[in-house]
Structure formats: C-alpha cells, structure tokens
C-alpha cells in the first residue's frame, strides 16, 4: 500500500506534524490484552458494584429499576440499529427515521403536546435546552424554578445559564409541593420561563392546573419536567397549558447503566416548532410516490444555521429513544395504564407500611404516583448503612440535596418490587431506625 501511495514508510505520512509536537515515545498505557482477558478484567470490576440484582433497592430519584423486556434488547442490539450514524442518507436509513417518527408520536401522546424532537441527551440537560429555547424565544433573562425540580436539573440549568446569560431564582415548596403564591410573586415580565416538575423530586404530584396559569401570567413560558411513566396516569402537561415538556427517558425501556446512556425527551406546543433543538423526523414521499421519512426542519440545526442554530446538539441518543418507543409499544395503550395503577397501589401500600413503623413519618402527604418521602427519627446515613448490611437499599437520602430534609429518605417503587419486598423494606428499615434510636438513647446522658 505504501508503494501505491509513493512513500517509503508510514512515518513519511506524518511529516506534516512538527517534531516538537510529536510524542516521540510510546503512550504510558498498559499493553493490549486478548478478548478473554479484557472480559475477565471488566467482569471483576463489575462484580465490585452492588447492582439492582445484588440488593433489594428502592432508590429512584430520577432513574428507576423497571424491568427492561428482552424484546427491547433484541431489537436495539440489531446491528442495523446499533451501528449506523445519524441518518444523513434517508434512502438507506428508513428504519431509523421511521422509528424516530414513531417515537415522536408516542412522546407527543404522553405529553399532550404536538411537537416532539427525536431525543436530547438526558433529563437535566433537556431542562437546560428548554431554557435556551425560552431565552431565544422571548429574549428575557430570568428563570423561575421550583425547588421541586430535580437538583441535577436545577444545577444544569444554572450552569448553562452562565453561558446564555440568565439569572435563576428558586421558589420554595410547602407541604411537599411548589408554593403557588411564592411562584406568583416570583414571576415578573422579565421572566423568560418557569420550571416545574411533575411529579416533583419529592414524588409529590403538582397541581399544574393551578400553577401553570400563574407561571404564564406575565408572558413567561411554562416548562415542565415529567416522569414519562407517571404521564401514563397523570393529566398530560400539554392539556394544562405547559409550553415545553421535557424529561428523563430512562424509565422507558432503558437500563440504569449507572446513569447513562439514556435519553431526554423534548416536546413543545406548535408555536415552538421551528425553535426546537435536535433532530426531527418528518414524513414525505419519494420520487415514485412511496411513503418515506427524512430529517426535517434542519434549518434550525447547527450544521446549517451554525452560530444562529437553535442548539449545538448533533449526536443525541437515538438508540435509547428507539428503546423507548419499543418499550412503549410493548406496554401498549392498556398496559401503561395498568402499570401505573399498579405502581400507585403499591406505593400507597408502601407509604402505609413504612409509616406504620415507629420513628418513620411521612415527609409530606401530597398525592404521589410511584415515589414518596419519609422522615426518620434517626440519623439517615446510619439507618441506610444498617439496611445495606441487610441487603436492602431503602432509598435516596434527600439530605444530599435538601439540607432542610436531612432526616428524609426518598423511596421509589417499581413493578419489580412486590408486596413481599415492600414488607421486607418496612421490616428492615423499621428495625434499623429502632436500633439507631436505642443506640442514641443508650448514649444519651442519664
């Protein structure tokens, strides 16, 4: 091959690289390994993680241990979906493009909004992207954010705001839900957008019917981050005046993967069609009138509009979104309802089972779908460790993000947590709290 090129050595091909910037030594990395050795090494690393198969876990906090049907894996593992690039050549990408179209339809159905893109990175960055949309749409410079919004979303929004230049003010929670009056006070005519979450981070279902009109009172956009599973039973945000609905797509057929890859969904009302970030698939016909699909409205995008693009996103999460629409097809129209009703029933049961134990109280009594918060009359960290020792992960420590809830635990239920599992949690958690209190009493001065 070198002869064909007309050079003597491979070295010659790198002549354009000045000597001064050549590495001139081997990389300081270990030598290569055979496949069996790499597999063994990674298996040993993986075994040092305590995963959802190793303990009975009730951690949620934005990502949930739902069962991922085998059919989802079998489809997304097909090389025809797994290995192609973004569908730049529609004639040989109809599979991906039609799947995007189907995905957009499903998200539109869940959110009650007519416009969905084909995915963004994940939940919190989707919130940041919604902020950018609002910023460009009404050129205002202020965001009002409910404290019920996922802490990662609030932080991501703040990080991105430092770039596109917006200030972020927070509205407190009362009784577990966003304080409507405080919200109304916080919103003014400089407010670009108001950010809510449904259900909010504490699992509480927000009264969007009340909040959204107040949020939009002076022309701000209403943005709502949603749990897509909960949307199976809750009023769709679009029905309640929300302008942009976003969220973390992981619960829809994506594995936990220690946090990613998953996908973010992004839906909006018709008014923002041409301000959407990311890819959008659209239906059209070919030269012979055959139905087909293409990437459309590309003049929004970075590769065409460059510095005037609605977003800089390029590679997104197409494969994860495919898993999402396959999962939703697997659940189906009735299945999603049945799933959410099961979650509501088991969550109500869990709420009672846990609070029936001494030293465990509800942190709020707002209605919930699949996650709720309890306050413990014992140090949460110590209680969690006792539970872990018993093979139970009782939930997420709210104190990590909410100093005011340092005594609270956020408990999530999925269809993989049976009544027996919940009873076990109540037992183990109750015992741990009791043990900690006993210990504290013993340590207390007589």
């Amino acid at each position: 091959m070198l002869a064909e090129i007309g050079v003597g050595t491979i070295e010659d091909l790198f002549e354009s690289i000045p000597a001064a910037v050549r590495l001139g030594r081997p990389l300081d990395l270990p030598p290569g390994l055979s496949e069996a050795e790499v597999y063994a090494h990674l298996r040993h690393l993986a075994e040092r993680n305590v995963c959802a198969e190793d303990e009975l876990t009730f951690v949620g906090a934005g990502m949930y241990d739902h069962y991922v049907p085998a059919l989802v894996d079998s489809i997304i593992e097909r090389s025809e979906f797994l290995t192609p690039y973004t569908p730049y050549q529609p004639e040989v990408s109809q599979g991906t493009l039609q799947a995007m179209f189907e995905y957009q339809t499903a998200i539109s159905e869940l959110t009650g909004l007519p416009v969905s893109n084909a995915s963004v990175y994940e939940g919190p960055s989707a919130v940041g992207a919604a902020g950018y949309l609002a910023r460009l749409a009404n050129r205002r410079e202020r965001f009002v954010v409910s404290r019920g919004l996922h802490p990662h979303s609030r932080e991501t929004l703040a990080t991105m705001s430092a770039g596109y230049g917006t200030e972020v003010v927070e509205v407190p929670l009362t009784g577990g839900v966003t304080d409507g009056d405080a919200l109304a006070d916080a919103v003014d005519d400089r407010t670009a957008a108001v950010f809510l979450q449904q259900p909010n981070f504490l699992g509480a279902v927000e009264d969007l019917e009340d909040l959204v009109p107040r949020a939009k009172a002076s022309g701000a956009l209403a943005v709502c981050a949603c749990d897509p599973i909960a949307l199976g039973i809750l009023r769709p945000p679009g029905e309640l005046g929300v302008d942009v609905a976003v969220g973390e797509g992981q619960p829809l057929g994506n594995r936990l993967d220690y946090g990613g890859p998953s996908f973010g969904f992004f839906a909006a009302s018709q008014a923002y069609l041409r301000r959407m970030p990311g890819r959008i698939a659209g239906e059209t016909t070919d030269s012979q009138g055959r139905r087909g699909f293409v990437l459309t409205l590309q003049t929004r995008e970075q590769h065409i509009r460059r510095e005037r693009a609605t977003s800089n996103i390029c590679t997104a999460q197409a494969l994860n979104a495919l898993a999402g629409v396959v999962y939703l097809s697997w659940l189906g129209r009735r299945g999603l309802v049945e799933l959410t009703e099961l979650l509501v029933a088991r969550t109500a049961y869990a709420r009672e089972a846990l609070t029936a134990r001494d030293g465990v109280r509800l942190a709020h009594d707002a209605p919930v779908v699949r996650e709720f918060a309890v306050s413990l009359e014992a140090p949460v960290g110590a209680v969690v460790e006792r539970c872990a020792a018993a093979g139970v992960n009782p939930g997420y420590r709210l104190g990590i993000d909410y100093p005011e809830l340092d005594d609270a635990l956020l408990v999530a239920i999925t269809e993989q947590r049976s009544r027996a599992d919940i009873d076990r949690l109540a037992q183990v958690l109750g015992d741990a709290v009791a043990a900690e209190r006993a210990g504290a009493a013993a340590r207390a001065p007589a």
Partner: protein
Amino acid sequence: MSAPAQTTGPPGREPAVTIFERSAPGRRAFTPPALDVPERPLDELLPARLRRREPARLPEVAEPEIVRHYNRLSKRNFDLDTGFYPLGSCTMKHNPKLHERVAALPGNARLHPAQDPRRAQGALELMWRLQGALAEIAGLPHVSLQPSAGSHGELAGVLLTRAYHEDRGDRRTKVLTPDTAHGTNPATVTMAGYQLVKLATAPDGGVDLDDLRAKVDDEVACLMLTNPNTLGLFDSHIEEIAEIVHGAGATLYYDGANLNAVVGISRPGDMGFDIVHFNLHKTFTQPHGGGGPGAGPIAVSDRIEPYLPRPQVIRRAADNGKEPYFDLDFDRPKSIGRLRGFQGNYGVFVRSYAYIRSLGAEGLREMSETAVLNANYLLAKLRRAGVAEYLPVAYDRVCMHEFVLSGAPMKRELGIRTLDLAKRLLDHGVHPPTVYFPLLVDEALLVEPTETETKETLDAFADAVAGILREAAREPEIVRRAPYTTPVGRLDEAAAAKRPVIRQPL
C-alpha cells in the same frame, strides 16, 4: 422477468407501515404482575382531577408483531456491520462485539447512578482509569467524563473558558473558529454567550495566520480548532498559533473529532491546547446507534482544572493505611457545575475502556497509523483509477485520516452533483462519504475510510467511484436518478419541511 407488481417483494422493500398502524384493540405484549396489595379505589389514592381522562393512544400490539415490525424496519437501514461507511468526520470504525457484552454485565447495566460510591467501586475505578488513559492520550492532566457528546464537550469547554477568564476578572466577548469548523463549534459559541469571529483558511489548508493575528485581541476568549482539521490536514503552524492565542491571553480549544489520526503520535496538550474534547463514539468505538448515544469527555490543563464540572471521579488515599478507594468529589467551589444528570454516559465509558485495554499503547498508535495509511492509500487509488479529472482532491497534500475531494469539475463537465454521486454509491452497497462539508470546498466529498477496512474494500470503493464517473459520462441520467436498489428512492425533503408531518395523526 422481474417480479410482477402485486408482490410485496423481499423483506424491507414493502410499503412503510408504522407501529401505530399495526395496532388492533385488545392486543398486548405486556401483562402486569398480579395486584398483590389491598385494592383501593383509585380516587382515594390519586384525585381524578390530577388524572388523565383518556389513556395515551399507544399502539396495541403483541410481541410477535413488535418483533417483526422493528426487524423489518431494521432491514431498511444500511449499517456498518453490512458494508463500507466512509462518512468523513464521523470515524465509522468497526465496533467490537466484546464491548456490548461487557457493557451489559449486570454490575454495569443494573447499577443505579445514586448508589453509594462505596458500593460502586468497580464503576468508579473504571471511570478513574479511563480518565487517566484519556489524560495520557490528550497530554493534559485533568479529565471530566461528564459531557454526553462532542458538542456537549464543546459547551463544557467554552463555559470553562468563560469561568477561567471571569475568575480572573477578565470579561471577554469573542470566540474564534476557522471557516472550516464543524457547525457545532459556532453553535456552541453562541450558546455559551460569546460572539463568533470566523478565521480564513490559508492556501495550504491551515489557519490563515495573518487573519488570526488581525483578529486576535484581548476581547477574544478562545480559539476552537480541529487538528487535523476538517480538511483532513494537520496544521503545521500549530505551535505558532498557540503562541499567538496564548499571547492574547485566550485559551486554545481542541475539537477532538479528528483525534483518530494522531493517537500515540501527537498530543493536543503538547500542541499547546488548553482544553480537549473526545468523541468516544468516534475514536473509541461506541456504536453510533443511528444518532447516539455518545460521550464527549474533556481533558484540560492545570489552569482550567479548578472549573471542571461537578462531580469529579477521584481516588482517595484511605486513612489507617487501607487501600485507596474511589469517590465522587462534589467539593469544587469554582466548578462551573453540572452539565447533566448523574455521572455521564457510563455505558459508553465501559466500551471505550474495553477498547483501550484491548489495543494497549502500541495498538492505539497502530490504529492511527493505519487510519492515515488507509486514507492516503484510498486517495492514491482513486487518483490511479482516474477520478482526479472530475473529483480532484481539494488540497493536494499528504492527508491524515481523511481527505476532501471537490465535485466542482464533475458538476461542470458531467452535470453530476456530489449528491448524485453519493446517491449512486448507494446502489454499490456502500454508504457515501460526507457531502457538502466542509463548506469551504465546493461540492465537497469528505472521505474517511478508518483503520478497520481492508485493502479489498478500499479498492472496491475506488472502482465504484470510477465506474460511476464513466457511467455518468455515458448516461448521466442514470446517476442523476439514483438510487434504484434502496427501500425508497430520493425523498422530497422540501415538501417535508414545508408542511411538516412529524407525528402520526391518530
């Protein structure tokens, strides 16, 4: 005799039907576990006014139809495991199957991101080791794995630049990018609140140094570069560029999309870059998935380190002489904060780490050497096949891992546009190169063969291109109306944008 019309023809060739159109009331794949808790009226648990009135109109289909539907859809895609995919700037290299296996290990796939770090030591160690490897490859000491893709890494990088300057009380307003830059660069500049200033390209394909000198000043926060750039050329003046940029107090950002050319050969850090992003879905084999997932980790110099996103994966020395352990460090007062939820696209990290361990130091260097060898061989082969007359190389230099041809003469002489050539290539069972990018080159065709292709494949591609040009000379109409063998022909994109149908009406 060809197949009479009324047959549906082979799988993947039938008329498009959506999963919603396959729905029939009452069918289902999912059955919920039996209700095992006391039944209570829903209204008690969740007030009706908070509940949906109508179920979302999801499809009603059983598993066999779902499987067949998406199986048939998959047959309407061309993919890397089927044929050559020299899509320039995208590094469509083979994705080793091992990577899917290790990513799927339960300890990875079912690990909750909020798991206590003490119970996620394997994952944190993997991330820590990957950070170290990427730092060594970049020649920059500090790495954050958080960004979800290249463009996300760019945003991180420019926000870091902003934080760096502002921390020094230095408010700057402009960011420079060459006119060859990828679209994500300028888009990122705006998103990060800066004003874009374009740099011209010199006749040798590198940055026009005079233009750079003219435009660089104390308003400039950063210069974003790709090296080798999107023309597939290494900018030999990189040291001088770095000097100029640093001289003005600006940072130098490295868009790592083209890193596949120089791993183990030349390091961005040694070139003078302050911030680098990696596209793990390019250089480090994360399958592209039809548009993601990816990951865009960044590596930075000491002066940028304080501002890195939160949390960072670190190794802590344990007290009482125990083994050091791995942890998430949130205590970073100057950090720009989070760019996303949790710790990043961990599943992508697993694949890239497996890749780095499989190849090792030598293998990684050979990877880049072969990528550059293959590109130059294909360029030479195309020349020998006589395509230069209609498809000359845009900048006649030894290229790196990819090269740009211009279809301008082809358009002039044969009335064939680069797009036509691309569509006709589809009939040859290969995916076309990137077209109309970089914008700088008229009728551009950006060809990146990658290191995992054989000589036979490269030869076949050269022959296909030459054959199409001959065909075009004879009967241009054939090429203009291609493709013929694909599930659908050329699609009406104008109509799609004019009257957008972006969801199924139900």
